[in-house]
């Protein structure tokens, strides 16, 4: 009976099991990054829920703010000739950047949970390859999401920024870069904490309030004094101001350099921390 169920193993598949040299010659770090990135991109295509789920919070906030507050008067320091939708959309893109960044960290935690990390550790694969792949996938996801939000805003809500196409693209590019750098912060958090819940709490407790304590929804000058003080040192203010200045052709472009520098520092620190956290034994 058992012979029916279990045909004798074919030597072909067992071949070279005792070989002196490994059957396959090994792969370079770049190849490993490319293959692992391809793996997660494929999962994203076959399960687009990951991309769409991440869009929920930014899109809900976009609709809530533009619809609920549409009939309210604008605060005194609100820029002239700009609709609230135009004003708030660059901030929505930055919010989306943070949400997407969090998902990069969650993705790494998933890999640790389902055993992929344990598997890769038993293989001649550089530890940094998976981290880099998670970051690159986040870059793609953030780009797709930014495009979706922009198209939705333009076609459904009537977003019509004053900046040119090139400036608009630069503004979007800046938010994608911010997502990339925050992504490394979340990947580092995922590598150290190894659980998804703290990452989600981090996003909820840190990013969500920081968005309100910034120039995201109301000009800083119109915030209460203490909140304005927070907003003035909040890196998100710089990012949002720069993105807004580009898209709407309003003042604030001087915040572009600081926001890029801050993002770059976060990315580098995140990379180092992520690698260190990830190298620890499981």
């Amino acid at each position: 009976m058992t012979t029916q169920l279990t045909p004798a193993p074919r030597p072909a598949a067992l071949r070279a099991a005792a070989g002196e040299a490994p059957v396959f010659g090994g792969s370079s770090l770049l190849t490993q990054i490319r293959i692992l990135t391809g793996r997660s991109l494929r999962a994203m295509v076959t399960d687009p829920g990951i991309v769409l789920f991440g869009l929920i919070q930014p899109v809900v906030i976009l609709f809530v703010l533009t619809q609920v507050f549409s009939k309210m008067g604008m605060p005194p320091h609100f820029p002239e000739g700009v609709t609230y939708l135009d004003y708030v959309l660059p901030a929505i893109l930055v919010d989306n950047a943070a949400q997407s960044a969090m998902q990069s960290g969650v993705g790494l935690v998933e890999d640790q949970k389902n055993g992929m990390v344990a598997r890769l550790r038993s293989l001649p694969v550089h530890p940094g390859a998976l981290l880099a792949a998670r970051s690159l996938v986040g870059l793609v996801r953030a780009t797709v999401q930014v495009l979706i939000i922009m198209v939705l805003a333009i076609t459904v809500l009537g977003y019509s920024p004053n900046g040119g196409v090139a400036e608009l693209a630069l503004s979007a590019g800046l938010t994608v870069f911010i997502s990339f750098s925050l992504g490394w912060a979340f990947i580092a958090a995922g590598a150290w904490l190894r659980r998804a819940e703290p990452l989600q709490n981090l996003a909820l407790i840190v990013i969500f309030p920081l968005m309100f304590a910034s120039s995201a929804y109301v000009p800083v000058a119109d915030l209460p004094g203490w909140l304005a003080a927070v907003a003035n040192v909040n890196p998100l203010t710089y990012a949002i101001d720069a993105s807004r200045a580009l898209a709407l052709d309003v003042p604030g472009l001087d915040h572009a350099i600081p926001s890029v520098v801050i993002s770059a520092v976060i990315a580098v620190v995140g990379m180092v921390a992520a690698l260190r956290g990830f190298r620890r034994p499981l």
Partner: protein
Amino acid sequence: MSGLVTPPVAQPGPVAPSGDRDLMIEADDVTKSFGAVHALDSVSVGVPRGTVLGLLGHNGAGKTTLVNILTTALPLTSGRARVAGYDVAREPVEIRRRIGLTGQFASVDGQLSGRDNIVLIARLLGAGRRAAGARADELLELFRLTDVADRRASGYSGGLRRRLDLAVSLVGAPEVLFLDEPTTGLDPSSRLNLWEIVEGLVEQGTTVLLTTQYLEEADRLADSIAVLSAGRVVAAGTAAELKATVGRRTVTLTLDTGEDRGTAGAALRGAGFTPVNGEEDPRTVVVPIDATREIAEVVRTLDQVGVEATELTFGEPTLDDVYLALADQSAARTPV
């Protein structure tokens, strides 16, 4: 049964002097501490090329810790270990190129199909697209996964996942294969299939370290066995050697009536045996023997006094006896 057990602690047997070139796995005095907890306490094992070492032990005995150290996932605290001739601390990448690992939990990407899981690992090991595909086909067939190859692994049953996991760990045709409780949760047919595959691999020269709680599995697959308890090797040797430490083989005779036991017992004692009355059935007599040929003498002795046995069974001590005996002894030594 416990009366039979006289467990001397066997000396760690399968340890060969270091420098033996044909030892594919070599651990010398490996100790691993997590803070104050000693997960492994001077563990030494050696596995010659093309053989299987069965690592037996309870949960928490240190089996997985040893596997993690040997597969370079965990640094050791002290001691030395070599796999495929390379040092775990100094040459981990060379080791990773030559080993396969199937852990206690299936390490597969649920979002990918079974085939893509295999292809992914093959590509990471340096296979081209076509070579990776060919390797996947071979392994899918070997593990009877061809029918489900293109389905997402997240939809696989537990048994399918484990088979896929093992297939993935064989992608690089590893010289040394680590199987950490590989048949946990498998149905009997899948387990048999896995055993046959392991036997096939060993025939081809693969060296295997297998951890298991199933004694049947160690008995069937392992050339030598090491029993781990609380981080120490408490016994090592071949299955036969371990059985010999537990007790002798026995012949159990079922007689016509309980009264015959007196006659039979006296006659057997006269012939130099040490019969014991069976506890569960009042008609049985248990006779320890040293060799199988003594069965004939037992029967002859009964014949001479005119007692007939309606049933005669021959019992070998099982690895369960070894396991329980050694575990009892160890528990008595180091109360938890």
